[in-house]
């Protein structure tokens, strides 16, 4: 047996999954090969590390109690009908199943044949609507036109709900529209209060379904808004980029957002779509935020440094803008020949952005940074 065979069989050898003859042969090899001995020792330690629960956090001691409260609220029998069915299927012989099945089918046929007559005789169903010529089907108040899709039912006119009033000029209607869904794209003017500008067509599209029914719309308007409003304020999806930046713990970004008149940085990114702020969740040891800027139409640049001149540059661009890859040293503060660049495409809200992380680090470290970049939505 050669060393390469030992390498391939090492796991099985350590865990006792080899045939006796192979195991004996491998053991013979190990006696004379210190390198393979070390490998086997490592594989055993690796298995121990895989089994380790040293870093495993404790489960909340109240977990079971909370869970049982939830389960109790669900009810004791999740689906009695199916349970009864499955129990009978397990306990009863097969022919019994068929017998019940046959009985049920027969009953269904009888109902289909005599149902209309029974309904008429007993007066269970209300007065039938007027029959329209050329319609066939069961006489249960709903008629199906010949040759039409059976799912397209023709309802009698009096059974339809009254049509909602149609506004004369819906697009220019000044009436306030309750809009629980936040506008995903917001323009930010750093010099003044943040305003969401939503086109008129989108306002119509965002109109909630309650507006179609006047009673529901009125009830929705008269309902207390306090909790919903507070929840919306606390919801990050409702916050503007400027608000996110104000809450951001990174001081440079706060600085960028606050005196916006002098530093038109992240909060004033122009472009057809407002770009989200991106931030890596992982940075190599020692690297700290050193600067951030939007140096062109829709390119966001964030610079991290561990010491002056050692820059790790994150660039985010709207992929449609066609920003070319700037090679080594292209980032702000970069300039070392040993710089590398890794790229990623990231999709956020159906928009694809291109990330580039450049710096004098290994591609593995750059990849870890790039993979950890998340948008602050």
């Amino acid at each position: 047996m050669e060393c390469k065979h030992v390498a391939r069989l090492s796991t099985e050898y350590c865990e006792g999954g080899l045939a006796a003859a192979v195991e004996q042969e491998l053991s013979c090899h190990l006696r004379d090969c210190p390198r393979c001995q070390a490998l086997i020792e490592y594989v055993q330690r690796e298995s121990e590390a895989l089994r380790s629960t040293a870093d495993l956090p404790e489960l909340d001691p109240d977990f079971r109690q909370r869970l049982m409260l939830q389960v109790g609220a669900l009810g004791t029998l999740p689906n009695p009908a199916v349970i009864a069915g499955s129990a009978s299927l397990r306990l009863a012989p097969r022919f019994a199943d068929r017998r019940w099945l046959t009985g049920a089918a027969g009953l269904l046929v009888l109902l289909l044949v005599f149902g209309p007559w029974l309904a008429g005789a007993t007066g269970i169903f209300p007065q039938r609507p007027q029959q329209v010529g050329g319609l066939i089907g069961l006489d249960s108040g709903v008629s199906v036109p010949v040759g039409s899709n059976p799912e397209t039912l023709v309802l009698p006119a009096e059974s339809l709900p009254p049509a909602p009033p149609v506004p004369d000029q819906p697009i220019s209607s000044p009436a306030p529209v309750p809009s629980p869904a936040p506008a995903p794209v917001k323009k930010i003017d750093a010099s003044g209060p943040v305003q969401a500008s939503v086109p008129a067509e989108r306002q119509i599209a965002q109109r909630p379904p309650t507006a179609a029914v006047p009673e529901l719309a009125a009830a929705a308007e008269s309902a207390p808004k306090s909790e919903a409003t507070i929840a919306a304020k606390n919801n990050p999806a409702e916050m503007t980029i400027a608000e996110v930046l104000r809450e951001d713990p990174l001081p440079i970004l706060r600085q960028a957002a606050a005196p916006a008149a002098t530093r038109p940085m992240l909060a004033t990114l122009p472009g057809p779509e407002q770009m989200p702020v991106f931030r890596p969740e992982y940075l190599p040891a020692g690297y700290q935020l050193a600067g951030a800027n939007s140096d062109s139409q829709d390119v966001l640049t964030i610079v991290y440094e561990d010491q002056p001149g050692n820059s790790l540059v994150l660039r985010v661009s709207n992929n449609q803008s066609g920003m070319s890859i700037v090679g080594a040293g292209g980032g702000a503060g970069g300039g070392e020949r040993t710089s590398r660049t890794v790229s990623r495409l990231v999709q956020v809200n159906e928009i694809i952005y291109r990330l580039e992380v450049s710096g004098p680090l290994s591609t593995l470290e750059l990849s870890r940074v790039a993979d950890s970049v998340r948008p602050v939505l």
Partner: protein
Amino acid sequence: MTRPDEVLAVDTVKGDLQAFEELVKRYQGAVFRLAFRMTGQREEAEDAAQEVFIQVFKKMYQFDPDKRFAPWLFRVATNICISRLRARKKVIMLNFDDPAQRRLEFEQADIDADPLISLEKSELQREVQEVLQELPEHYRLLLIMRYQLELNSQEIARSLETTRENVDVKMHRARRLLRTAMLKRLQEREETYGMQTRRQVKH
């Protein structure tokens, strides 16, 4: 005398909540461990574990008492963990000249484990758990089920609805992939440290 899991499951269907609580007591640790190793976050792991047991309770009538309960439970847990991982990926990373993916590809070359041997026990444990999070989900799942839940190949095969042979083959690849990733991680680190040392000398 303790009732078997399968009896408890049947009693749960009959409305015995204490039977279900006993099942939770027996398996909450394992389900939480699986969820934590898959998601890497404590809060999410607790939420996932809760979702698993509620789902199990709701679907208990589908459990076949002629089969074993644990693989069925772990199948539900696995599905929930994976669907949570997928839901979490709202930001979709597209593969774009990605060296991180390439480095995790299964390599046929023999592995020289020399650099790994020098790792201390605690360091090795930390590195292994970190690399585990970087492995593709199906390999990670196999390793977690084998080493954290201590299931054998047959039990894993039942849980994942596959064959034992398939589990053995995939497990072999998972271990090899783990070792490759560990080795490359150390080599990259060595390269980085070496570069930083050289830079400091230059300054």
